[in-house]
């Protein structure tokens, strides 16, 4: 059969499913601490002793419930980063830097934006971030109890 290409039917469709994700008590408390107390709290595993942020209710590695809540430092080190250059629905205008940062005292890294870096020349920005990998936490004036209540800023070397 040799139907002309324009006759080959392509039916448009789109998916738009609605979800309500349950954050659970642990994540809810983590977010409440950001919003109300401008604190980043993690939970420590009673078995391996890791202090994990964002807070989790159980430790994947040991498969036990996490224990005490503890604050982590407000400075940290960039473990990994990238520079986003393409617009994405719901996001601020690019270019943007996202990074995983291990805050002092924590045993896991947390993802957030890094602001205040000149991104006109991305290779220069990348080199800068490799050489200056220390950042500080900055809380937003208006906080909503979401992960975006804080971001990182580079600590100039």
């Amino acid at each position, binding site marked *: 059969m040799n139907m002309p290409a324009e006759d080959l039917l392509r039916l448009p469709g789109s998916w738009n499913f609605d979800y309500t*994700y349950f954050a659970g008590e642990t994540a809810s408390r983590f977010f409440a601490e950001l919003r109300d107390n401008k604190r980043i709290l993690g939970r420590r595993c009673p078995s391996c002793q890791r202090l994990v942020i964002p807070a989790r209710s159980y430790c*994947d590695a040991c498969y036990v419930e996490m224990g005490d809540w503890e604050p982590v430092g407000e400075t940290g080190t960039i473990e*990994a980063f*990238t520079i986003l250059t393409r617009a994405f629905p719901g996001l601020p205008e690019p270019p943007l830097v*996202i990074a*995983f940062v291990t805050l002092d005292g924590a045993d896991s890294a947390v*993802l957030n934006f890094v602001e205040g870096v000149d991104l006109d020349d*991305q290779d220069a920005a990348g080199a800068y971030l490799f050489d200056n990998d220390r950042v500080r936490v900055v809380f937003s004036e208006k906080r909503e109890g979401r992960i975006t209540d804080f971001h990182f800023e580079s600590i100039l070397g």
Partner: protein
Amino acid sequence: MSREPIGIVGVGQTPYRRSNPGLSAGELVKIAVDEALADAGLGIDAIGAVIGGVAPDALAGIKDIDRMSISVPGRPYFRVNTGGATGSSIVQAALAWIGAGRADTVLVVALERMGQASTAQSIFNTIFDPIYEKDFVLTTITMAALRASMLVKRHGFTEQHWAGIASRNFTNAVDNPLAIGARALTPEQVLASPMLAWPIHRYEACPTTEGACALVLSRAGVIGCAHSTAWIHGMGGSSDTYSMGERMNRPEGSLIEMVPLRRAAEAAYRQAGITDPGRQVRVFELQAPFSIIEAMAYPALGLCEVERSRPFVDEVLAGATGIEFNPSGGAQAVNPVSATALIRIAEAAQQARGLAGARQRDGVRRAVATGQGGATQFSTVCVLSADQPGD
């Protein structure tokens, strides 16, 4: 591993291209299945079970697209979904099915219909944690870019390394008639392509691709001597925790050491009796949709020490290792998500069987295929050989 050897006796693949508007899902599958059955010299009646692989439904835009295209009425059937590792997970499931004595011969089929999606990366964003991480535009591209930054920092990789790996993969793909539209690219052309997420250029990532791949697996007792078979000597799998932040620096290894891949490789090598993969394996088909992932895979696969990652890539790019990587062009040239891990096994099998046509490499006895799903979270390693285990 089951006690009786199991081999791949039939391989079928559709050509892989961005979209196939002239074919339904079922028609795509039938092309691959018919070819695999013909290769095996079997009819569908000889098949004891069918195992289907379809990764995230969102890519095709139809829930359980396998139901209308892969499942065979009257046969036991089930669908596996482990993201990018799907194609290898169905082989693992088939090995269990045959090893348990439930069937002598199993057909595994993987189908990708992502040509129906308008923006794959928007879909890939929805694989990430909705509570803590979705706000930051994690996609498969950005998560690879994050790893790239660690590789640069810890091992001194440069953009030339990524571009060199990509160039080699695309150039290999030119000899693969199934990689429709493949063209050779120089490292300079790769670096000149637009930046997706720093430092990853478009030609260091993979294209949107559709297609289907099917394999027939049988136990040794039913395989005729005359039949060209790729024997499975080892199959390992390991899945990791999700959070990248928790995988940064663990006692088991950092994020860029690909701990689950290492563990899967160790299990597969142990079963296969491989102690020196760099010397004992001739071909590696790696599931590395980004060239930076390929760079991380070498030490995880035991080809070099972690500290020597960068010098090893220099050797690879100079063609000085005696190992052939991705003769098919790999996942970088062609990456239909649901099928890609199966295609790696299929391509490795064809190399071991001497049936890889223009992309056949010389002197292949053993070939290894890797599979990967999630953000380097699920890993599989399959060791294939032209020789029966125990020979």
